[in-house]
């Protein structure tokens, strides 16, 4: 069977258009940021995270099963390697109440544990995420020594993509005292809360000692 030229031309163009459209949709999805945080401007007193007034405090809230967050952790590692004065750093793994124990101990947890000077914490029922107003995995916050919010945003350029980006560079510049931090960069990652999960914040809740890990650099 020989395809007529006109049939091939029409079919070929249609095929190419569909392939290009599909690629464009994929790109669009991967560059669609998650919901931005409404982080408190002042360190929330209810937080069980310990803030050291002698250093600045960096918090990254992550979903333990979000593959895109692997890029956020990679960027965090890059960030910490570039700063002269390291902040107190927490990577907070959210654990919804409906999931079994150990659910949050994923390869991302292991990767976070290997980061030097980082404290890894389980966030039961997403209380800390709620206190800091975070919605999307990879949300990064920086509070200064006075507990004032200096940065809130993402430190990757797209979903699951590593490489130079505005958020990471802004934090590096701030921590090195080179410039003011510019928050508001988009956050690319999974949603920290699902439709069946409740956002619960209780002053009585505190991080579980057994679920913390601190790695001194």
């Amino acid at each position, binding site marked *: 069977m020989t*395809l007529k030229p006109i049939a091939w031309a029409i079919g070929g163009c249609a095929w190419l258009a569909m392939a290009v459209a599909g690629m464009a949709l994929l790109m669009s999805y991967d560059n669609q940021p998650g919901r931005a945080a409404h982080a408190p401007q002042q360190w929330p007193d209810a937080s069980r995270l310990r803030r050291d007034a002698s250093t600045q405090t960096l918090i990254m809230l992550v979903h333990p099963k979000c593959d895109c967050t692997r890029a956020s952790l990679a960027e965090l590692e890059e960030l910490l390697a570039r700063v002269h004065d390291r902040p107190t750093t927490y990577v907070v793994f959210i654990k919804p109440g409906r999931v079994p124990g150990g659910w949050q101990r994923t390869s991302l947890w292991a990767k976070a544990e290997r980061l030097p000077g980082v404290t890894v914490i389980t966030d039961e029922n997403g209380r800390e995420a709620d206190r800091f107003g975070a919605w999307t995995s990879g949300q990064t916050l920086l509070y200064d020594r006075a507990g004032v919010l200096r940065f809130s945003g993402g430190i990757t350029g797209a979903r699951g993509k590593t490489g130079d*980006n505005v958020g990471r560079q802004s934090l590096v510049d701030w921590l090195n005292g080179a410039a003011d931090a510019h928050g508001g960069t988009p956050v690319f990652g999974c949603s920290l809360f699902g*439709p069946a999960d409740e956002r619960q914040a209780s002053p009585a809740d505190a991080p579980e000692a057994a679920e913390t890990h601190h790695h001194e650099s």
Partner: protein
Amino acid sequence: MSPSATPPLADRKKVVLSTRAESLFRAHQQSIYVQTDRMFAYLMAAQWLAGIVFALVVAPRTWAGSSSQVHVHVWAAVIIGGLVSVFPAALALWQPGAPATRYTVATAQMLMSALLIHLTGGRIETHFHVFGSLAFLAFYRDWRVLVPATVVVAADHALRGYFWPESVYGVVLPSQWRWIEHSAWVIFEDVFLVISCVSGTRELEAIAVQTASLETVNRDQAHRTIELGELVARLRLTQEQAEAATRAKNEFVANMSHELRTPLNAITLYSELLQEDAADAGRASDVQDLGRIQMASKHLLGLINGLLDLSKVEAGKMEVHVEAFDVAPMVADLVSTMAPLVKTNGNSLVVDVKDDVGTMEGDVTKTRQVLFNLLSNAGKFTTNGTVTLQAKRHVRDTGDVMEFIVSDTGIGISDGQKAKLFKPFAQAETSISRKYGGTGLGLALVAGFCQLMGGSVSVTSAPGQGTTFTVRLPAVLEVPQTQRSPDQPTPVEDPLAVLTAG
């Protein structure tokens, strides 16, 4: 068409060869297109599957709190990967070899590169898929397929670099001209691939020309083989006819010789009786006439005996009777017989028999006949000269050889005459037959007997400087006695094969 309009044969052959080479080249090229299309069909399927597996391993699900669903990348690998792969794979299977198929394959391959690069987060390692694909496309040996492939790569990098640079470069803020750098590296590879394609195409053309030439040679060779076979068949038929004619001739000669000898013997016998009666009666005139009749009858009888012997030799029916005999007495007896004949023309006969000649185991009758013929010839063609007979024994590891040399100082033989010297009825010149007599069978019988006894005869001579015949015979004829019985005569296919003329 007028004869002048017909191109020369050489030009027509060139046109035929060129047309055939072009046909072979197109066929070979088409087979490469078809084969490469099919390879890409399988590659497309493999890449599609690999993309799905990769997405499932790296990001199988996307999460929202405790809820999850299949990751968009998995669906992208299935749907977009399928969309990119299925159409060109279908073309490759249903319409292999068509130009549109390979251009679609080239475009699809680069789209697949773009998808894989995106799914891996713009990893630089995945960009090698682009370069590998270009090299694979060069399998077509059609540099034109590299054009759409390169355009797709350049457009992909330009558009994605502008809208979503992270997905292709892994950085958010690349230079707006970075797509040119990427495209330049692709074109860098293209240059070598184009050279490779053009070179490969030329090789195909050369192979086609060689194959067409080889076909022509093989066709000509086949024709020549057929002609040769026909020639061989004709030669075989001719040979069979000649052999049949020879057999018929020999049988005829043998029969005729036998039939002629009986009345000739009667003529000889009765002419002798009549001559005796005429002598007793004092009829001198009758005695002389009857003497002529006897002489003519004996000559004719000798001729017939010679013919009979020769026909037996040629027919392989001549028997060899081996017996041990002393050479010196045999020579002495022969000389006593031949001396009067040799000395007829005023010649002297010199005999030189070495002391160590010893004994021979062979056919004494035929050996005597050989020497008799040679001495007879020497005496016949020499006047007031010398005829010499020498006999000596040569000791050899392979068996002793008896050598007899008969030389004379006679008229000699020219080179042209020597060439036919040992052939029957081939006396040097017709005038010689008239002047010296003879039948022309003597030397043919010498050659035949020597061959029969495992020996050889050669001659050296020059006109006016005499002639020397050399006969070499094995001192011990090693043919078993049983093979020389009348039922199994010693075969002689060509009695002249071992003769040499010096």
